[in-house]
């Protein structure tokens, strides 16, 4: 990183250390208190409309919560107080890691690099198989978080030599302001931003967000409204609109479809989904079929057999999609990227490790075909 001088590094690290140290007593306090919500933020939210009688209408996501004084939105992290709407988790991070970008998963975006992965509490849907339910399906008071304002988050990314920051684990849309401001601050330092979302967001905020981030991965949980109603409490149409909007914007898009045995693994649905992707956002959008590991409320379902994932991949490839991957099965050939021109392996992946990279300036080194993605 050319901008990183030793002084800056020390400064950032000291800054990060101070932040952490400052947070520690508060952190310990929170450990001692049961159910006490210490330290929520009170930063005015965006995308809402004031109504008479101190009511507001939130315009961030299609739930369109209409809230009276002291009421919180469905997501649990935005609250109306006296007619002004606030975000309760601005700058309040509960999970912070450096993960390989392949883990988000992004396979066509800065491969082999680390992403500073962060999350604040909250979510606006309720997937029964949520991997991060402890921070997404609870009230923010029940979560131990510490202060990490946008500038500090960017500092952490720099300190860890991460070329990108990932807003992930929970649903970053519900802490939109924090994500947006961090992305803007990151851009100033030439650090990119990638968003991992379930896609329940309105057009206007999405449009604004797409101007400051560099890649979006949308979790397409299923391809029927029935599934969305029962297992997600969400709206398929909204998610499809989001995917379409991201595709049109030029921001890099990848899609993940978590295949859950007997719930969303029907061949017909996979085929419809593949056709839709081809028609609406094009064959160059990578689609990942991920293996379901039982947890949370669906802990007692069996995991997805690898054969099911392979069939899904075959279906999608036969519908013309070019980059179809299998996730959570390390060592599987479906993890690697194949050149659409000559068919050779241009990126061999084993788990999160890149074993071989045959790309130069975004082109296959064997045949010269261009591969879509953000490679540098």
């Amino acid at each position, binding site marked *: 990183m050319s901008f990183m001088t030793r002084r800056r590094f020390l400064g950032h690290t000291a800054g990060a250390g101070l932040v952490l140290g400052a947070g520690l007593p508060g952190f*310990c306090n929170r*450990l001692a208190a*049961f*159910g006490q919500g210490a330290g929520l933020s009170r930063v005015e939210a965006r995308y809402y409309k004031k109504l008479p009688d101190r009511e507001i209408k939130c315009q961030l996501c299609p739930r369109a919560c209409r809230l009276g004084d002291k009421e919180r939105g469905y997501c649990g992290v935005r609250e109306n107080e006296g007619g002004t709407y606030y975000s309760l988790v601005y700058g309040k991070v*509960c*999970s*912070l*890691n*450096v*993960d*390989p970008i392949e*883990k988000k998963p992004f396979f066509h975006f800065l491969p082999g690099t680390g992403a500073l992965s962060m*999350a604040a509490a909250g979510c606006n849907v309720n997937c*029964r198989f949520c*991997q*991060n*339910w*402890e*921070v997404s399906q*609870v009230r923010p008071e*029940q*979560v*131990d978080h510490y202060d990490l304002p946008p500038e500090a988050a960017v500092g952490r990314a720099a300190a860890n030599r991460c070329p990108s920051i990932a807003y992930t*684990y929970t649903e970053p849309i519900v802490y939109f302001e924090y994500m947006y401001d961090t992305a803007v601050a990151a851009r100033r330092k030439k650090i990119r931003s990638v968003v991992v979302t379930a896609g329940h967001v309105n057009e206007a905020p999405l449009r604004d967000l797409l101007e400051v981030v560099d890649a979006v991965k949308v979790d397409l949980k299923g391809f029927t409204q029935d599934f969305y109603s029962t297992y997600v409490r969400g709206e398929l149409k909204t998610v499809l609109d989001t995917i379409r909007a991201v595709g049109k914007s030029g921001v890099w898009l990848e899609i993940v479809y978590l295949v859950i*045995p*007997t*719930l969303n693994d029907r061949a017909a649905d996979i085929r419809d989904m593949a056709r839709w992707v081809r028609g609406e956002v094009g064959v160059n959008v990578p689609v990942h079929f991920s293996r379901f*590991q*039982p*947890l*949370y*409320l*669906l*802990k*007692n*379902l*069996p*995991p*997805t*057999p690898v*054969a*099911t994932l392979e069939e899904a991949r075959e279906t999608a490839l036969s519908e013309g999609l070019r980059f179809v991957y299998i996730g959570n*099965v*390390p*060592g599987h050939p479906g993890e690697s990227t194949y050149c659409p021109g000559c068919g050779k392996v241009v990126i061999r*992946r*084993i*788990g*999160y*490790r890149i*074993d071989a990279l045959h790309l130069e300036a975004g082109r296959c080194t064997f045949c010269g075909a261009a591969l879509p993605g953000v490679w540098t």
Partner: protein
Amino acid sequence: MHILRRRAARGLDLRSRVPAFLLGFLATSFQIYLLREFNAAFYGNELTFGFVLGAWLLWGGLGSLIRPKRAVDGTGLVRLYTLAIGLFLASLVLLRFSHRLMGLPPGQATGLTASLASSLLVGFLVSFPLGAAFVLNSLGLPGGTLRVYVLESLGAAVGGLGVHFLLVPRFSNWQGASIVSAAAAAALLFAVPRKRSAGLIAVALAASAGFGFLDSPAQKAAWRPLELVRSEDTPYGRLQVIRVGQQLSLYSNGLPLFTYPDAAAAEESVHFALLQLPRPRNVLLIGGGAGGALGEILKYPEARVDYVELDPAVIRLAEAVLPASGIADLRSPRVAIHLEDGRAFLERAPAASYDAVILDLPEPATAQINRFYTVEFFATVRAKLGPRGVLAFAVPSDENYIGRDLQRLLGSLLATLENVFPRVAVVPGGRNVFLASGAPLSIEAGWLSAAVSKLGLRNSFVSPGMLPARLNPLRVDYLMDKIRAGAGAGALNRDLVPVSYYFHSVFWAGQFKGPESRLLGLLARIPPFWVLDFPLMLAVPFLALAALRKRPSPYRFLVPVAVMGFTAIIAEMAVLIAFQAAFGCVYGKISLLLTSFMAGLFAGSAAGRRRKRAGPGDLAAVEAGFVIILLGVAAAVSAPVPEAVPYLALFAFGGLGGWLFIVANRLYLGESGHPGTGYAIDLIGSFLGVVLASSFVIPLLGIPALLGRLALLNLLGMLFAAALTLRKGANATVA
């Protein structure tokens, strides 16, 4: 009272005794089968066991408070029994389809609210009519309440023994239930005096007989759209094999034990441990072998494995359904399979005989499994490991955030390990792998990856491709900081104070939106004084007032009954849990243990009936007996005792309880008289006892502390009864 005097019929023919006997027989066998079916539907542990037992006792108690307006004859009684049989079969169906009825797919977990609600519903449907039947029997039978109690206890003992020895080993739950119901219906048809209703009973008989054949289709239907391919009811619970494509999953009581193939789980369990050793040779694997862990261990060329599995049915089913690759591991010459309890096996092993002990068991979700995560067990493991030996187990966790409840659970496991082993390391991830040893451990990604490559291990998950991300120092440090903060005071997990099991219940309950988790968490924070000692202190003035009232109420004789009901059930649970910890196979012997209790109840109540002249002095003597036995049991649970001791203890509790019940009732009925009240007080006292004990007192405060307080309570009861002897006209004689 006057009803009893009117019905002075002398008839001593056997047929008049059948209904009371049948009542006990049905009550116990229904209870056993409902409990087993409940466990299979709601992944039973001791907490839910307490709910089911408690609901059963509560409704039985309430049922026995009915006051029929007019005398009920034989036909009415028979109709009530037939109704009970029908409701029992219906309850089994309700339990089997409980998920579907709640609108949930078969794989979705349910919380405590669902368990509690279902147990209350089922208890009402089945136990309430039987409680009412007790009263009706008492009104109809010469000898009244006391005789019914004796016959009922005898029937209960016979029922329990019959179910345990004859039915459970050979038949599935529904088949056994079918046999019991059909036998009862036949008895009603032929052996009970009645006038009409032959048609109704015949229908019940036919339904019962056919019920067993519905078992397999009903199980398959309940699992749809998943495919159930095999099922077996063992003494430990229900094993079921689910197939998705080529993948097979084995479930025990609705919880997944393992999936084949599932490289992630198998590799995690094995490699983090074995990579610590230069050349692992002797490995002990407890549980999970059929799920692929064996294959992973066999990747190490010199390793040989002792694989210990408690339930032989697991191996049998695995061999029946697994593909050749899976079976080959089970049959490898380097694998020795031992069908017994893992703890018992390890205790007999020579010292320092193993390089690694791998626990491939579920997390401490029941008090029974909890005993593999206690200080006592870890001490045994340390003794049997070589100086560089490693202990390993994996616990489901959260990859990205450790919440407070999870922190307490993981913290207690860490604290317990660190109490015994000098070195402990914890691997972050969706499952946390705990490693413990006397020698240094490493979970550094580079080191482990190099070891994997050097050995040429073909791993997918514990591999250079995945380890660096998983073992990122940020993740390792975050996890360690969090769980160390949770390893504070009161975190040590012991056989008799199973706190990890409790913390797991709290964590598990937190997934559901109900108040269960907060309630359990709150209970965990109440200092023991308020739970145990303060109520005792309150009881003193209360009992003193009750004993010294100017105009004594007949209920005063039932105070010892309430105390006894409360005490006996808690003591029963304490003995069961202590028995589990020591011998490890309660679920297999539970009906036998319960039968000891019921047999004692019968013997005690029969002896009580013989005692013609009874007074409060007898009550005081019984309470004294309770105190002595409670103290004896408190001493015995902490010491190694022969396996017969728990049976004797339960028999003694039952005997004293039965004797007390008869004598107290005799005194009570001598002064006033609803025949069911004593029974009701007994049962309601038991309900309170079991709910309190199983929900948090035993797990958090431990068995010795609890037994000590119970002894104190009974001491108070003894003083109370002694005070009663000071009143005039205390004695009564009722035949």
